[in-house]
């Protein structure tokens, strides 16, 4: 079972090695395997959304970063608002501090396809737990249609913002998953756990920064 560390602008210095490993694994996955991004000379993958507004959930097992998620408030510039807004023809682009965009999830090759109790489901559990802790209402964003049945298997409800679309030979859809106790309970039941997967070290930064309480974290 993975432990999932919450990493953001205020405690990132505690995770220098893990964060670097995360960026290298991202490069492996998004550049070499998915070919979504051009190679970077330093072998690390970063994009314009890796800013201080992002919170990273790093799934660590046996000292390795085996999976990850990046969460960004949709009130900030994020992938759907900047790149995929045309895919939200039904509901428009959500822009709410309590709706998080979930991107940059990979699973290292030797931890893939381990059934419904595997690393991916463990990460999903941690994301749902974090989202509930932080008072979020929804998490999601642009996703490969192929993987959508996984949400169904977790008994999660994913609301589409628009139709599925083909882009560069792959099919995507923008959808947001409802955050609630039932969603956490169902994924925990599948994993057979009743405990937290999250680890919080150092200074914690609340995910939701309502405009009037915004901290300067630069």
């Amino acid at each position, binding site marked *: 079972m993975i432990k999932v560390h919450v990493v953001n602008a205020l405690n990132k210095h505690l995770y220098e090695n893990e964060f670097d490993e995360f960026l290298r694994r991202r490069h492996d996955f998004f550049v070499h395997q998915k070919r979504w991004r051009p190679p970077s000379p330093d072998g690390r993958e970063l994009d314009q959304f890796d800013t201080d507004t992002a919170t990273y959930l790093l799934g660590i097992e046996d000292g390795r970063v085996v999976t990850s998620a990046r969460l960004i408030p949709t009130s900030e510039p994020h992938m759907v608002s900047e790149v995929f807004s045309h895919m939200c*023809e*039904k509901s428009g682009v959500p822009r709410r501090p309590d709706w998080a965009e979930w991107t940059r999830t990979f699973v290292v090759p*030797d931890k893939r*396809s*381990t*059934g*419904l*109790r595997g690393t991916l489901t463990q990460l999903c559990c941690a994301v749902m737990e974090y989202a509930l802790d932080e008072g979020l209402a929804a998490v999601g964003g642009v996703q490969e*249609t*192929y*993987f*959508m*049945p*996984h*949400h*169904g*298997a977790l*008994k999660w*409800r*994913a609301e*589409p913002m628009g*139709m*599925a*679309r*083909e882009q560069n*030979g*792959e*099919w995507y*859809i923008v959808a947001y998953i409802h955050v609630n106790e039932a969603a956490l309970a169902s994924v925990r039941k*599948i994993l*057979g756990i009743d405990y937290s997967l999250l680890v919080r070290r150092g200074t914690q930064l609340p995910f939701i920064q309502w405009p009037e309480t915004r901290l300067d974290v630069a």
Partner: protein
Amino acid sequence: MIDSDVFDFVERCRKHTATGPLLGDLLETVRNLGFEHLILSGVPLGGQKLAPMVELNGWPAGWFERYVAAEHAAVDGVCIYSAKTLKPFFWADVPAKWSDTEGSRRVAGEATEFGILSGFAVPMLSVHHWQSVLSFASSQKSCSLSPRQQVQLVTMAVYAGMSIQALSNNDDGDEGPLTDREKEVLLWAAAGKTSSETSQILGLTERTVKWHSTRAREAFGVATTTQAVVEAVRRRLIHP
């Protein structure tokens, strides 16, 4: 068909509490795009039986029985290609390597007797099988979909696939067919170890190792440990 019909279907999807009404709803909705029949199933690999993998059966009466009895899945190009691609495709676009075989042409010929002439298939992740496919069938000689209709169909397919996963109870997945020890024994068998070697590696008696192999064979209803290894890999229970 207009987009709101698709979103209405999506909305109805999560209210269906049984597969029957979901199938009926999907059949009725995709009729507007020219599809009269559909099947949602795990993709059978290497001689796996199709029937237990079917999750929504909207094929014409008689055709499913014929397809299963004749073991068409093993030669049908559409079925074979469904295991090889992650992307939605027109049946007509299945590469000739799989569609232009004698067996596949025979299946396609027989299907016409049941009013199935063309189709469109949407492969999806399955947590129980290698992957799933939702295949839509049309009585038109070649089904044509505008880009927008294709988008509508894929969207509905994805939501139907999600709903089916949500409806299937996970009780069978609670324990899984194999114990950790049985998996371990199969893993060493996959690595080429004999029962005696495995017994030394695991610190068990050879008799115990053989007993675990026997249990694994029984769990899958197969005769040899090699078959059990193949079945365990196929069901993603072990990762040699």
